[in-house]
């Protein structure tokens, strides 16, 4: 079955996107990426150190076949996000950028208004912009108009591992937004990832749950399979759940 996953004209080989923060070592991160078969990996510019030795430079550990997508972690407003994106590009990280504008370090919730401003500015500069957002339909539409390549609604707050708490809002986005929907943040278990895919999300980004697992390599493999399973379930037209039972022998079948 042909089921391409395309962002900004690029075919992405895996619907599992992996974040590279919080790992116990760069080598473990590298092995986990390999196990995940992720095609897009995100990395915080604040951690990229091109002046350090090979051992410390995270970029040296990212598989060459992956698309490296810097994120603007630490940006408190649009201006900072734009500056971080430009620095990342100047450092040779390419045109992909995940916008994270977080002006609240208590709950780490994204600032949609500033994200929209940053998206518009960076899209005009030729970046492939993937904005992390609070799942709000009006803001998602504004992001589309601003030139985003996808939208990345949060499943639940970063680091909470609570799963797809925002499922009803994400379902609305899947229905109404034509851009790829990548559920990001708060995905704590492979079953959460499968659920997001069954809702119709195009992809899932996971970081904390994999990086902090007892066995990140095995956990990454589990997530990869779960995302694949969830996507297959969605494509198969899996039945919606109902509140009441439905008899398998219909009452009006005699009319046919």
């Amino acid at each position, binding site marked *: 079955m042909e089921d391409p996953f395309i962002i900004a004209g690029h075919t992405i080989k895996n619907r599992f996107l992996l974040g590279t923060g*919080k*790992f116990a070592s*760069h080598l473990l991160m590298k092995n986990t990426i390999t196990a995940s078969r992720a095609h897009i990996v995100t990395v915080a510019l604040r951690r990229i150190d091109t002046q*350090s030795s090979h051992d410390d430079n995270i970029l040296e550990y990212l598989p060459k076949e992956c698309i490296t997508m810097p994120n603007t972690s630490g940006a408190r407003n649009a201006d900072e996000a734009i500056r971080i994106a430009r*620095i990342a590009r100047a450092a040779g990280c390419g045109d992909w950028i995940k916008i994270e504008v977080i002006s609240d370090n208590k709950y780490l919730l994204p600032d949609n208004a500033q994200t929209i401003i940053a998206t518009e500015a960076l899209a005009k500069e030729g970046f492939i912009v993937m904005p992390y957002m609070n799942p709000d339909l009006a803001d998602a539409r504004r992001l589309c108009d601003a030139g985003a390549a996808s939208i990345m609604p949060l499943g639940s707050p970063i680091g909470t591992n609570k799963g797809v708490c925002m499922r009803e809002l994400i379902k609305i986005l899947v229905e109404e937004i034509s851009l790829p929907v990548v559920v990001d943040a708060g995905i704590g278990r492979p079953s959460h990832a499968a659920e997001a895919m069954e809702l119709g999300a195009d992809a899932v980004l996971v970081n904390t749950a994999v*990086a902090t697992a007892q066995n990140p390599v095995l956990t990454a493999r589990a997530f990869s399979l779960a995302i694949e399973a969830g996507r297959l379930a969605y494509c198969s037209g899996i039945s919606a759940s109902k509140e009441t039972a439905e008899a398998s022998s219909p009452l009006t079948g005699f009319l046919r």
Partner: protein
Amino acid sequence: MKGTFSNELARFSNFDFPSFLERVRKEDVERVLLKETLNEFDFLTLLSPSAVEYLEPLAQKAHKSTLAHFGRVISLYTPLYISNYCENECLYCGFRHSNPMQRRKLPVRKVKMEAEEIASSGIRNVLLLTGESRIVSSVSYIKECIQTLNQHFASVSIEIYPLEKDEYASLIEYGVDGIAVYQETYDKNLYSTMHIDGPKSDYLFRLDTPQRAAEARMRQVNIGALLGLGEFQKDVFFTGLHGHWLQNNYPEIELGVSFPRIQPQAGDFVCEHPLTDQELVQSIVATRLFLPHAGITISTRENSALRRNLIGLGVTRMSAGSRTQVGGYSLAAAEEGQFEIADKSSVYEVREMIEQRGYQPVCKDWQAI
């Protein structure tokens, strides 16, 4: 909300701490253990004597919380003292004005030498410190030093005398992205007996310093009390409350909390409330559960074995390769430092220790943008 933190402190001016702490029962601690979000009285409950027998489950919960929010990562930095001139008379401090020690202030070219020496260890975050003398270590001198440090480090923080808001704003323009300012003790009466002369004797000015820095849009704000001056439960509680207030009113800041314990220093100060290792651990895990998103720093005031064991209990940041003498890195300075270093490990050894604990030492966690 806003206002000042002193309004918040005033709520507790007549609070009977000993009575509250004494009345905490095991069931109260167990109830708090089950909660996801703690309020201030839950936090105080975890600092009570009754919480001590629950230290292990508290530590496990603090570990899980830290893992979720910070991962298996410890950020490293090195302190750089550029001047030990001080106008204050703080009874517990080696730099106090009346202490007959050799005073030194580094010219900028020697700050560069110190920076090069520290940077050669791989450290990318530096904490610039001075004794508290605005006359000798003027803001313009500090700006010159910061310009030099920016050439060698990705991130520069400062721990100097409290400044006005516009002064912090101008230092941010020069490339400072964090401050550390410790209230030492939140007990106003005790504070005045400990700080008998100099600008630091102004309790309220110091108390409002983190707020001024936050209003100037300082990125990182690190607070703490000097544990051992007063009863630790009160000072740890008020430090937590201060952090909570800062997060609520200035949610943009990256909050950090430190737990410096009084160590031997120059002079004859006797610590009346020395903190045991167990009380230090209790303070750290309780703070972690009350402030899950705050960074927690342990410096080289603590020995290597203890620091090794504190990794995994909530600590996210450590100093490494530290010298507290002015010119201590490149100039073989032999005079007294501000305090005695307990962990004399090199940066390489600290990195190795962190890796052996299954964590990743991170030397770069920010850069000027």
